[in-house]
């Protein structure tokens, strides 16, 4: 069978990448490893001395930790939606990027909640969340949501990888015996019978149908931590859908960045092609439009009616000596740049799409900062405090170090995962290559342009 043949070729290409570490990769690991260790030290300081080492104080009780929490969780949800939708709509081109999307989902859903733990003063009492949970609390909703989602995401990642595990377990030339044994265990007896293929596909379809609405639910639940409070800028009925869109928007941007990075790092130009960037780019434009609409509508209603605290908050956000620059960057650059650079065909290329993605991901991080910090700096009762650190939040080195550690963890886990499973799924990519060859052969004079000309 041709697919087998192609997958053997791919295996020859990816196999060595799985089994060995290049010098560049080791340097990469070392770099992020050091940053991660720095974060561990910061964590040690925070745990021993208490939250006093952070910039958080009685008014701004949450800071960059919760910003990172929303950020990573958002990325994760996006990965699941993209993977789920792509699986359901079933376009052939999706196949090489499915692994990245699902890995992104699982890795960020592991990192995100770590940040909420950093916001908790008494980690020694964490088990109380399970001993004395109160269903009225949006935090408990979130605990349930995240755990449910984590299980679903892990299952999805695993089911999508089963075929590759089967291939890898039968590759004596590249894999050490112990690794083949491990792969064989994970392949769960998959030998590519018709029934197995059918069952696997059915399982993935069912899981997609479960995961996509789950994302909507868990994203909304996340937003309700804020939406359920009597705070200007938080207490908003559109916060649920707003967070859903924001999450998918950010995550799609991150996926573009990951594709770009691995394409360069592992020379995957033949598999991660321009069309992948372009299709995700289209998605970004649509999401930017939708997200921009929500943003406009959210700020317009607050600004127009000018209820006391909303007006105060809007002023704080827009004043250039306060959050103005961040506000304009997050809400204009982060929405308009992708629309212009990707939306107008003349500007559209892998590099501009990646650049737009980088801008919007950064903008979305700042956007979360703008949601959290200025609102907390605008209490309903005047602060009348003279302690500067209580009036105005500034993150400390501990918080920045732990933020960097989260990013480091993301890269480290991604790299480690890519050493265990190929970052481009072997089986499905072979399938795609074969199918496209077939269609190309049927439409005689046409050549598979997309594959060769764009790399």
């Amino acid at each position, binding site marked *: 069978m041709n697919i087998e043949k192609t997958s053997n070729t791919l295996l020859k290409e990816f196999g060595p990448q799985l089994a060995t570490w290049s010098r560049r990769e080791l340097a990469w690991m070392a770099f992020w490893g050091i940053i991660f260790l720095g974060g561990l030290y910061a964590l040690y300081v925070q745990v021993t001395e208490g939250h006093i080492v952070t910039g958080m104080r009685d008014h701004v009780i949450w800071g960059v930790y919760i910003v990172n929490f929303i950020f990573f969780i958002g990325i994760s949800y996006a990965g699941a939606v993209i993977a789920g939708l792509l699986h359901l709509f079933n376009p052939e081109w999706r196949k090489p990027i499915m692994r990245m999307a699902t890995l992104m989902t699982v890795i960020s859903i592991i990192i995100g909640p770590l940040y909420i733990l950093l916001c908790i003063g008494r980690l020694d009492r964490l088990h109380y969340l399970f001993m004395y949970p109160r269903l009225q609390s949006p935090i408990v909703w979130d*605990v349930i949501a995240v755990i449910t989602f984590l299980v679903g995401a892990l299952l999805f990642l695993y089911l999508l990888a089963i075929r590759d595990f089967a291939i890898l377990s039968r590759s004596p030339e590249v894999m050490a015996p112990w690794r083949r044994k491990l792969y064989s265990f994970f392949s769960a007896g998959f030998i590519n019978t018709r029934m197995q293929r059918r069952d696997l596909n059915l399982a993935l379809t069912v899981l997609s149908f479960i995961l996509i609405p789950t994302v909507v639910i868990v994203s909304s639940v996340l937003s309700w931590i804020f939406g359920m409070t009597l705070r200007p800028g938080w207490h908003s009925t559109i916060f649920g859908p707003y967070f859903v869109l924001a999450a998918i928007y950010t995550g799609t941007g991150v996926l573009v960045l990951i594709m770009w990075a691995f394409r360069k790092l592992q020379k995957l130009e033949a598999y991660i092609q321009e069309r992948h960037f372009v299709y995700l780019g289209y998605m970004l434009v649509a999401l930017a439009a939708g997200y921009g609409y929500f943003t406009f509508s959210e700020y317009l209603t607050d600004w127009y009616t000018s209820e006391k605290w909303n007006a105060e908050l809007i002023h704080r956000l827009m004043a250039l000596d306060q959050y103005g620059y961040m506000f304009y960057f997050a809400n204009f650059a982060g929405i308009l740049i992708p629309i212009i650079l990707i939306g107008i065909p003349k500007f559209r290329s892998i590099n501009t799409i990646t650049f737009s993605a980088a801008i919007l991901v950064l903008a979305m991080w700042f956007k979360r900062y703008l949601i959290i910090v200025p609102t907390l700096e605008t209490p309903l009762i005047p602060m009348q405090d003279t302690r500067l650190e209580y009036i105005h939040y500034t993150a400390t080195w501990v918080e920045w170090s732990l933020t960097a550690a989260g990013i480091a963890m993301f890269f480290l886990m991604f790299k480690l995962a890519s050493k265990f499973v190929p970052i481009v799924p072997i089986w499905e990519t072979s399938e795609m290559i074969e199918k496209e060859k077939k269609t190309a052969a049927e439409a005689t004079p046409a050549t598979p342009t997309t594959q060769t000309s764009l790399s």
Partner: protein
Amino acid sequence: MDKDTSKRRNFLRAGVALGLATVAPALSRGAAELLGEAAADDAAAGTGNTVKLLSPTGEIVEVDASELKLDTHDHASTMARNVTGREGIEGRKFVMVIDLGRCRNARKCVTACQKMHHIPEDKEWLQVKLMKDNDNAAPYWFPKTCFHCDNPPCVKVCPVDATFKRSDGLVLIDNDRCIGCKFCMAACPYSTRVFNWGEPEIIEPTTCPPYSPETSTPSKHSTVEKCDFCPDMVREGKLPDCVTSCPNGVFYFGDENEDTVTNGSETVRFSALLKEKSGYRFMEDLGTKPRVYYLPPSSRMFPVERGFKNLTPEVKERFKDIQ
């Protein structure tokens, strides 16, 4: 002053013991005073006398004092009987009225509260703000306790039942339960709650009572604290320290069921006070239903400027935007 205090204590104590609270609506002012005095005299004199009491049907009856079970528990027995502090004091519905017309920012309430709870100077469970509602409005001093809301946003969001609403209206925190997520602080619209960001400083730790949600002290690191209406004092028949320390009688504390509040020197009908002086609740439109009522800063006893006298530079600095 001392005599007043002891009378009031006995009055409250008798109230606790007899469960008069439930029949309070039928009580006229005169009857309440009569009853209060009688109960107080009895508690002071011991047994052997008859006491006039109000029956559940609204009649005044006389009973022998020896038949009364006056609750004379001390702090230790409170602890033993109600270890968790999660049960409210039966039949009570605590309420506070703050008369803004009397406040001159003497800040005795703030320091008394800090002393009583062994908390340092920079931690204020009770704050005095300087409010100015609009450009033309006259500024006024605004003492702010926890409002012990009947629809408390903080209690709703607590994931582990560390902060809770009791049957006597109080919203308390169990610092042995609190995981320090600070969600309650985000939820409270009145910035009432404070967090122990580092190891808490405990002033005069040797005299600290044992911890219970009712004493709220000693502070515990990385947990949330706030004004608790001093239920441990109430159990001993005493008023919260903010009430007794105020030189101008700004704070009235009492029981909504009994329809009685006192500021230490005068005891008045709660409903009548609200009616006569147009009592209101702060930010009523938030729907939190506070148990703290304010009397508007009309017919003031002091000009607002009096409040700037004898302030430390740090405290004075706080009000620079309004001054």
